[in-house]
């Protein structure tokens, strides 16, 4: 009995469609599990963030008004207070920190990028990198022991110093990265035309890298604006008007911390609003930075 070629072919098993053996089923199942769990975890990660943001925004927006930015906190949770001094304090502290962090950070980056060779440069880079991993409360301790304790007073000045130290490695790293991206030819051209190293750096290299440097600086400022721990023992916080940087100074983060733990509901409400303002600050700087970085990338 002969079968035609076609019949024989169609009754042959399709080698690309193996019957589901136990092994294949298990394989398929494992793969499916991975896809499901990975997707769930991604959703979880994003979900937590969204939930957190909504929680703060929805609770905080209720008490967001002009008084919030201008008034002092009221005693004993009486209604009508604000976080004026806290916001002002944060701005002052970030300003102080920038006075320390920006020049030190940028010049260190210039050293590492333009001059540094060999062992010393590597040592400096390693030391700066180590600084990033240190919990910020340690810098608070440092400033506390060196400034607050001898002067016998908390002060915005010590807070600014602590925050400034925190800024240094952030500014250094982002600036150095950006300086490295400037093509060597531009430096060589400037030097060949008779420019000094100083002129080359400040008139050629830094302007070319400027948007990246600004990005790094803004990011660093946003970072320290959100710090609380180092300020606990330096600026300490106050519910009065900030009068001098050599006295206790309030900050938004300190006020939020304080009010969150407060027994008065009015203060807790304001804590939400303070948190909202902080988050808005972070969001705005994040967006601006991303927009800037897009512009920066187009340069080269």
């Amino acid at each position, binding site marked *: 009995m002969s079968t035609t070629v076609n019949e024989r*072919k169609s009754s*042959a098993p*399709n*080698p*690309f*469609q*193996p019957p589901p*053996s136990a*092994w*294949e089923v298990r*394989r398929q199942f494992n793969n499916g599990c991975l896809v499901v769990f990975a997707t769930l975890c991604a959703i979880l990660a994003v979900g937590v963030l969204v939930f957190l943001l909504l929680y703060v925004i929805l609770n905080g927006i209720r008490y967001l008004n002009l008084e919030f930015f201008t008034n002092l906190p009221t005693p004993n949770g009486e209604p009508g207070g604000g976080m004026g001094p806290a916001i002002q304090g944060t701005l002052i502290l970030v300003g102080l920190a920038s006075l320390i962090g920006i020049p030190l950070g940028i010049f260190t980056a210039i050293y590492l990028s333009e001059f540094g060779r060999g062992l010393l440069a590597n040592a400096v880079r390693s030391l700066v990198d180590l600084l990033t991993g240190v919990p910020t409360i340690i810098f608070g301790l440092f400033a506390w022991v060196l400034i607050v304790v001898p002067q016998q007073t908390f002060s915005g000045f010590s807070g600014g110093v602590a925050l400034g130290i925190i800024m240094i490695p952030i500014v250094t790293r982002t600036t150095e990265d950006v300086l490295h991206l400037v093509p060597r030819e531009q430096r060589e051209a400037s030097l060949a035309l008779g420019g000094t190293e100083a002129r080359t750096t400040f008139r050629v290299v830094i302007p070319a890298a400027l948007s990246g440097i600004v990005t790094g600086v803004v990011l660093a400022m946003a970072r320290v604006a959100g710090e609380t721990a180092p300020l606990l023992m330096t600026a300490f916080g106050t519910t009065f008007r900030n009068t001098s940087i050599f006295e206790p100074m309030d900050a938004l983060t300190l006020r939020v911390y304080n009010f969150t733990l407060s027994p008065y509901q009015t203060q807790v409400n304001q804590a939400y609003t303070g948190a909202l303002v902080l988050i808005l600050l972070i969001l705005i700087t994040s967006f601006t930075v991303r927009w800037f970085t897009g512009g920066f990338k187009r340069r080269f």
Partner: protein
Amino acid sequence: MSFTVEHLNAWYGRKQALYDVNLSFGPQSVTAMIGPSGCGKSTFVRCLNRMHEEIPDARVTGRVLVDDFDIYARSIKPRHVRQHVGMVFQQPNVLPTRSIFDNVAIGPRINGHAHGPDLRELVERSLRQAALWEEVKDQLQAPATQLSGGQQQRLCIARTLANQPQVILMDEPCSALDPISTLQIEELIDELKQTYTIVIVTHNMSQAARVADRTVFFLLGRVIEEAETSKLFSQPQKKETEDYVSGRFG
């Protein structure tokens, strides 16, 4: 075993890379794909084991028939196709964190084809087929990265063989190797063709002349000419073929 390609078209996003390719490959033979850079020969070969579609936005239409079964049929999963159509890549891509044995064994292991003593036998057989057994039999547990470039490529071939495919695709397998290793692999191909259908992409025409029974000339995504190797090189029918083969462009 019959291996035929019908009306194959392939795209990278909007850019079409292959235009209406129709070819067939005989069993136990070596077919070489030649042509200048960017002519589509690598793309074509990647369509034969459904690797092309792994690229985002890549698309394929047409049929590829292995024993009259279309590997692009909707009901067929790409990974089942790849167990039957193996591939050796341009750069030897051994798994660096695994031993020589594990590298060869990984295919049958994940596909559940062999375990234990069967697996060891399969690994030995594959290494012998790849002409590597004698050199590594005493160091099977050593990391695969200890091998030289040529040895690593033969390890990749052994790894493909261990999966017991019917077709072996080779995408410029010798271009990263020194001349001696290249010769070793060409000798290997000569032996392997007694068991497998081999399709080899090469930019080296003398290699095609040495190893291939038939040769296909690609240009700008189209098959210009396909013939027995010696005929294609000595009596090309199309002008483009003649120009390429005589080195007027490359």
